[in-house]
């Protein structure tokens, strides 16, 4: 009990004495905990919005459709009804298939050129009855259901177009009033409507099609040579859980045969909107955790170096090496636990902003649930960050001999003969920078690592941007909700990453300034100007930053490669000047960030430093 009391007392006193550093450490670990919490909360919530939409719209278990296979598919002139009677018969016989307990449709579907608010887009137009269907009745979120001369627009498509109930639009040049806005579980929301199959009218628009409901008669009348009529049938099964198996069993490898899609596939495609965010948040949280390790390691090493005499005093009054290590470890583990708790709360508060599933789904109300496993994982990661960063300095402090510790003797710096020889041939600021950097190679490695992690994240974001620009084209008049949401998440992630890296750069520079105060003072006593010393201290950070930035470029490609590999897509290389700007910008930012602490360090009184050391 006595030891625990001593440890508690020492930890409490030290935390109170160094509040600024404690707060900095809290913020660092909290940033990582928050993103980790968000990543974990997002994981698993992807299916919930679809389930709610499915329940609210009496969503089908299987959606079946047929497409025209004749000249109507664009290979030549054809009649407006592109689906043959035999195809339609094959589709309608599915409602008698074993295991089917109900159906709605078949509904006529065609494709039309839509114009609204000056924007041109392609619409997949489904003809529906004015009466409510027993299966797949889209849930209105605005206005009323379709009547002749009116349309209802799928919600995410309406959001992208910027239209709502009461507005007007044209389909193939015919004017319609927007009666309402609705969601459905039978189609994947804009811009993924084509998941269940569609015919895009080439060369007329650069956008992905969105879903519009009209009356059956209107759908028939809108069908044209370029947009032939097809049919969609909704099926209800006795065993909804076997929908995928039913779809597979009833789909034949023929272009004219009905194509069936189970609700599980639609649900999974729906979840992609949030799934990309989830992936980004998970990657972001791990990158931030790595940065947090670097930050905390620098903080702890700096504090331990500053507390050598305290270690000596503790040992002189009988503290064992284990007790000394325990004091250091306990202090940082307590901070890590507090930071984890704060991160969990912050993550829980922010999560609803990111987990709202998009306009195409009804979504879940309020904050998503936080599981016990999330709490445990976040707490463990925060503790691991603190433990990994603290272990080496704590053990080193514990092993410090009592007499040198009482004399407050700093750990002797490393010597690298080759570095000294090379630096002798360089201008004074570079000479000082190389020699200062060479004194503490571990700190330089942390600096390189920190910048490399940050630049990897930034390059990954640039690659994603370049990929999306190329995929969807800058000319697209409609905003892709997936890209908009992903960009928001990536912006938050980039800001967090850059902020933490900036804190790291400042911490590392300050640690170097403190560590090099005597050698800086000696250099000044021997004739180095404050500007040269300041440039040297700053340069000692800029050189690792340059290496880190260069390493971050392949790091970013590696990161995206790993993510894209799991997503099964290819990597788009951003323009070279983007990457060059990142490297140059990193070096400039690090130079600017380190200039202030370096300048403060270089202007300390030489006489005072040399007399006190």
């Amino acid at each position, binding site marked *: 009990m006595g030891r625990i009391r001593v440890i508690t007392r020492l930890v409490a006193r030290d935390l109170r004495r160094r509040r600024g550093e404690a707060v900095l450490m809290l913020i660092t670990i909290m940033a990582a905990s928050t993103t980790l919490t968000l990543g974990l909360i997002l994981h698993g919530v992807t299916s919930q919005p679809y389930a709610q939409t499915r329940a609210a719209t009496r969503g089908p278990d299987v959606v079946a459709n047929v497409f025209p296979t004749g000249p109507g598919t664009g290979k030549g002139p054809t009649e407006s009804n592109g689906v043959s009677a035999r195809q339609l018969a094959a589709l309608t016989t599915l409602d008698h298939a074993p295991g089917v307990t109900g159906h709605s449709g078949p509904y006529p579907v065609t494709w039309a050129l839509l114009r609204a608010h000056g924007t041109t887009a392609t619409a997949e137009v489904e003809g529906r009855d004015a009466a409510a269907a027993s299966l797949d009745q889209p849930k209105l979120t605005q206005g009323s259901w379709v009547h002749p001369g009116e349309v209802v627009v799928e919600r995410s498509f309406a959001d992208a177009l910027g239209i709502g109930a009461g507005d007007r639009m044209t389909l193939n040049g015919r004017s319609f009033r927007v009666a309402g806005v609705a969601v459905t579980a039978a189609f994947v929301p804009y811009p993924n409507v084509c998941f269940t199959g569609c015919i895009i009218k080439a060369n007329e628009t650069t956008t992905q099609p969105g879903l519009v409901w009209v009356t059956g008669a209107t759908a028939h009348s809108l069908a044209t040579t370029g947009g032939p009529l097809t049919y969609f049938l909704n099926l209800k099964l006795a065993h909804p859980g076997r929908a995928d198996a039913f779809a597979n069993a009833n789909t034949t490898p023929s272009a004219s045969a009905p194509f069936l899609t189970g609700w599980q596939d639609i649900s999974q495609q729906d979840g992609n909107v949030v799934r990309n965010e989830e992936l980004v948040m998970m990657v972001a949280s791990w990158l931030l955790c790595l940065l947090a390790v670097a930050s905390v390691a620098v903080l702890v090493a700096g504090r331990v170096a500053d507390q050598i005499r305290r270690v000596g005093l503790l040992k002189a009054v009988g503290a064992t090496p284990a007790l000394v290590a325990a004091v250091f470890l306990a202090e940082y583990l307590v901070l890590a636990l507090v930071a984890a708790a704060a991160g969990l709360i912050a993550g829980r508060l922010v999560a609803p902003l990111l987990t709202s599933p998009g306009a195409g789904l009804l979504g879940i109300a309020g904050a998503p649930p936080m599981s016990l496993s999330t709490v445990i994982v976040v707490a463990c990661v925060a503790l691991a960050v603190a433990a990994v960063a603290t272990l080496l300095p704590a053990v080193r402090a514990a092993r410090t001999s009592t007499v040198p510790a009482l004399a407050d003797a700093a750990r002797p710096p490393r010597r690298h003969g080759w570095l000294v020889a090379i630096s002798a041939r360089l201008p004074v600021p570079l000479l000082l920078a190389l*020699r200062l950097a060479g*004194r503490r190679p571990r700190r330089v490695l942390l600096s390189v690592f920190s910048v490399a992690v940050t630049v990897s994240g930034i390059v990954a974001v640039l690659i994603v941007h370049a990929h999306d620009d190329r995929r969807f084209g800058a000319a697209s008049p409609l905003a892709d909700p997936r890209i908009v949401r992903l960009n928001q998440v990536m912006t938050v992630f980039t800001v967090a990453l850059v902020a933490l890296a900036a804190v790291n750069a400042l911490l590392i520079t300050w640690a170097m300034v403190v560590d090099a105060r005597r050698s800086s003072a000696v250099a000044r006593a021997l*004739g*180095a100007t*404050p500007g040269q010393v300041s440039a040297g201290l700053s340069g000692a950070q800029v050189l690792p930053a340059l290496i880190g930035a260069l390493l971050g470029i392949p790091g970013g490609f590696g990161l995206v490669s790993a993510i894209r590999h799991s997503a099964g897509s290819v990597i788009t290389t951003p323009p070279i000047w983007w990457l060059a700007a990142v490297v140059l910008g990193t070096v400039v930012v690090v130079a600017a960030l380190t200039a202030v602490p370096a300048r403060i360090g270089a202007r300390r009184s030489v006489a005072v430093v*040399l007399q006190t050391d």
Partner: protein
Amino acid sequence: MRAILGRLEGRKVSETGSTAILRARELRKNYGKDDGLVRAVDGVDLEVAPGETVAVMGPSGCGKSTLLHLLGGLERPTAGEIWLAGRRTDQLGERSLAAMRRDGVGFVFQAFHLLDELTAVENVELPALLAGSSARGARRRAVDLLERIGLADRASYQPAALSGGQRQRVAIARALANEPLVVLADEPTGNLDSAATLDVLRLFDSLREAGQTLVVVTHDTRIAATADRMISMRDGAFVEETRLTGGTTGHLAALAGLDG
């Protein structure tokens, strides 16, 4: 060291009409204010002639080290004037002060203040590198200085592998790297045993013979006995000045009882 003498020959009389290489007038340095005011240096007047060795003595805390820091431009005076080689230095900016320390002054500290990660020769060549000398020229000069102080065989040793006396001799060689006008030594033997003290005293004596201007702050009478002039300091002010004949190393060793 002959080069030092060469540089001093033909030195012009300063603007103040003095031939002193180093001159201070009404020099003051205060710390704190009101009730906490400490007059570390209180109205000191000093003139050091070229090639002269001046010893400043006094008890701990009398302001000796502060005076040395003021003369060398490591601290700025509260009031008064400092002139080095006819140029007023107390009003110089940081860059000019740094240039003055680089080219005009060599410091020797009680705690040596050698950089632990550098070898003896690398420590000695550092001031020349900071002054913009070529790497080869700086190394040649450093090796030459180490030979003169008898430590050529320790050139590649790091400070931790050297004895206290050897470290201080390396520090003195470093102070001479840029052929300074004045060497300012702050308790140079304060951390040394008797034998090492004798080594350093011999080195200072050879410097004096070579015409190097020296200002040594000490509370050790044996060191002061090597000087041309001994100034006693108390409470920040000079209280007594004694002109000495200046001792040879042998004379000094006999005086100090260290040659046996």
